[in-house]
């Protein structure tokens, strides 16, 4: 009885113990199965329930296994932060329970993690550690399996030769399982590796086996890879037509076949990434265009601003120049005003003095001086009055001059006529003044001497002034009278007037000719100095 009770109690407690142990373990196994089936969410949920139980039990071995499975699921779902978390939690558990097998698997998973992030050196270290652990467990198959991962790492680093050295032992180890996934994977690795090394014959050997095995195992993804490698192999053999056909078969198979959900997800992920990148690129382009437009706008605004500033500056300059010109004009007017005033003072002085002189000779001298001043004064009078400030219109000037001379000498009206044969022309001051003085002397001579003692005649007494320019713009002057041909006092006189004529003619580079006869006295002067009109 006591033995039966003890047995029943043992059975009860062992059953309860077994059931508790079995629940965590069952959850672990269930999670494992769900993971293999690809039900990641279901697997994760179950495994987490198992994890909490295992933690309560402080079952390090089970914890090691659960963390490993969770890490695998995280890797398959690309949640690599969770991969690292599970690895780092799992490794201490494996070490604690001295679960070398679990530990080696977790170290292998850590290597896969590093491989994902292309930390190839770290990945190789992990794979080597994992392989050593598997070797310690005498799990040759697992150790050789690690070689495949190491080959992946070397291939990623571009060291295809070293990768081949890793793949070959793995291939040899799977020869005893010729219809297994492992052997199919070994052929995939080597087919790809020999394609990278451009060894088409070796690649073809393994690729043909890949195609055969993948068809047998209904591994469509691996089969499509085989078609792709077949095209590459033909390409490396320079059988381009065959390569094209092979690529076409691959493209058709890829389109028509049922692509695993993972591939679809990958494609959609890539597509989404592409679309996002495309949109980002469009946004960037639009932003660039906007920036360019903004830049153009500001450049245009800046340009307009500069143009406006330049325009304002130009206007200010023009205003300043105009103001300066006006000031200069005003100054010139003032100078002319003062010159004319001074000439008037001079003329007035001479006139006033002449009223005090009783001596005829002296009086003549003063009056002649006054006439000279008046001749110059008339130039200035006409100079400012004309449109051309610095030039004198000679026809107008000579007509006024002639009238003044007649009145100055008190010639009665009709007694002497002044005739003018003057071409309309403008002369500058430097020419007009000496010319005016020359003409003054010549007319004075005629007025004083030409008609003295002249017998009354049919022809009236005439003094003619001719002034013309030729085709070369050289000036020709003639002052002639129809008097007795006398030009000076019989006694000779002082000759001052004649000297003055000669000096002034020389100044104007003139050549003088005199024609003297009983019919009159004529002086002709041709000036070589060109006239500026």
């Amino acid at each position, binding site marked *: 009885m006591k033995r039966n009770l003890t047995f029943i109690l043992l059975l009860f407690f062992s059953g309860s113990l077994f059931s508790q142990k079995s629940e965590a373990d069952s959850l672990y196994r269930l999670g494992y199965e769900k993971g293999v089936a690809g039900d990641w969410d279901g697997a994760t949920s179950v495994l987490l329930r198992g994890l909490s139980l295992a933690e309560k039990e402080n079952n390090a071995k089970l914890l090691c296994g659960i963390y490993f499975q969770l890490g695998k699921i995280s890797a398959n779902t690309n949640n690599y932060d969770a991969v690292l978390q599970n690895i780092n939690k799992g490794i201490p558990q494996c070490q604690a329970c001295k679960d070398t097998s679990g530990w080696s698997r977790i170290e292998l998973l850590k290597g896969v993690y590093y491989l994902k992030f292309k930390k190839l050196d770290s990945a190789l270290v992990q794979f080597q550690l994992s392989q050593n652990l598997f070797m310690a467990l005498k799990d040759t198959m697992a150790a050789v399996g690690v070689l495949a991962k190491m080959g992946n790492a070397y291939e990623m680093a571009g060291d295809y030769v070293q990768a081949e050295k890793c793949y070959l032992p793995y291939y040899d180890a799977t020869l005893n399982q010729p219809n297994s996934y492992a052997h199919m994977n070994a052929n995939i690795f080597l087919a790809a590796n020999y394609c990278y090394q451009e060894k088409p014959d070796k690649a073809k050997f393994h690729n043909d086996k890949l195609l055969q095995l993948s068809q047998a195992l209904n591994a469509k993804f691996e089969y499509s890879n085989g078609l792709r490698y077949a095209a590459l192999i033909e390409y490396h053999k320079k059988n381009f037509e065959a390569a094209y056909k092979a690529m076409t078969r691959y493209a058709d198979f890829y389109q028509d076949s049922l692509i695993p959900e993972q591939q679809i997800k990958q494609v959609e992920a890539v597509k989404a990434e592409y679309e996002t990148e495309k949109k980002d690129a469009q946004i960037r382009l639009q932003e660039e265009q906007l920036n360019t437009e903004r830049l153009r706008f500001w450049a245009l605004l800046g340009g307009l601003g500069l143009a406006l500033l330049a325009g304002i500056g130009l206007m200010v300059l023009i205003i300043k120049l105009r103001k300066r010109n006006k000031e200069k004009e005003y100054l010139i*007017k003032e100078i002319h005003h003062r010159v004319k005033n001074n000439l*008037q003072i001079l*003329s007035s002085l001479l006139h*006033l003095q002449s009223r005090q002189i009783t001596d005829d000779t002296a009086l003549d001298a003063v009056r002649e001086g006054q006439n000279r001043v008046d001749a110059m004064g008339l130039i200035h009078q006409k100079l400012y*009055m004309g449109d051309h400030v610095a030039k004198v219109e000679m026809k107008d000037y000579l007509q006024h001059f002639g009238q003044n001379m007649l009145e100055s000498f008190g010639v009665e009206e009709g007694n002497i006529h002044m005739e003018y044969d003057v071409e309309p022309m403008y002369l500058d001051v430097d020419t007009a003044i000496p010319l005016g003085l020359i003409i003054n002397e010549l007319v004075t001579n005629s007025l004083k001497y030409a008609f003295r003692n002249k017998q009354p005649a049919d022809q009236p007494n005439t003094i003619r002034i001719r002034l013309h320019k030729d085709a070369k713009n050289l000036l020709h002057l003639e002052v002639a009278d129809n008097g007795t041909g006398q030009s000076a006092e019989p006694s000779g006189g002082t000759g001052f007037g004649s000297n003055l004529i000669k000096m002034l003619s020389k100044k104007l580079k003139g050549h003088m000719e005199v024609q003297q006869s009983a019919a009159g006295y004529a002086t002709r002067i041709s000036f070589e100095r060109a006239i500026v009109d």
Partner: protein
Amino acid sequence: MYSPVILLAEDDPIIALDLMENLEQFPFQVVELDGPEELSAANSAYQPSLIILNYRYSEGPNGMELARSLLAQSSAKILCVTGAGRAEVESESTPDSRLHVLYKPFSRAQLQSCLKACCNATA
């Protein structure tokens, strides 16, 4: 005997003297003023027949403005003696038959002609 009066407000003494000597030929009393500022009062006092002034004085009022003012106040003729250019003077002057201008440097003939025009008509 009453003689018509000519007021003379020429600021240059030499030219003033010259003008006065030329005016002696005419039967006028010439009253020489010290400056243009006396013109208005002298005009009221003397009721002149002719006023001779400058277009521009070194100090004091503008001659043409004075001339316009005097033309408005009296029936006297005005003779403006000036060294300025014709264009400048004509631009400022008011067309009036009583206003005459003599441009410096004038000749004896021009002076005589101008004075005759002013005085003979006045006389």
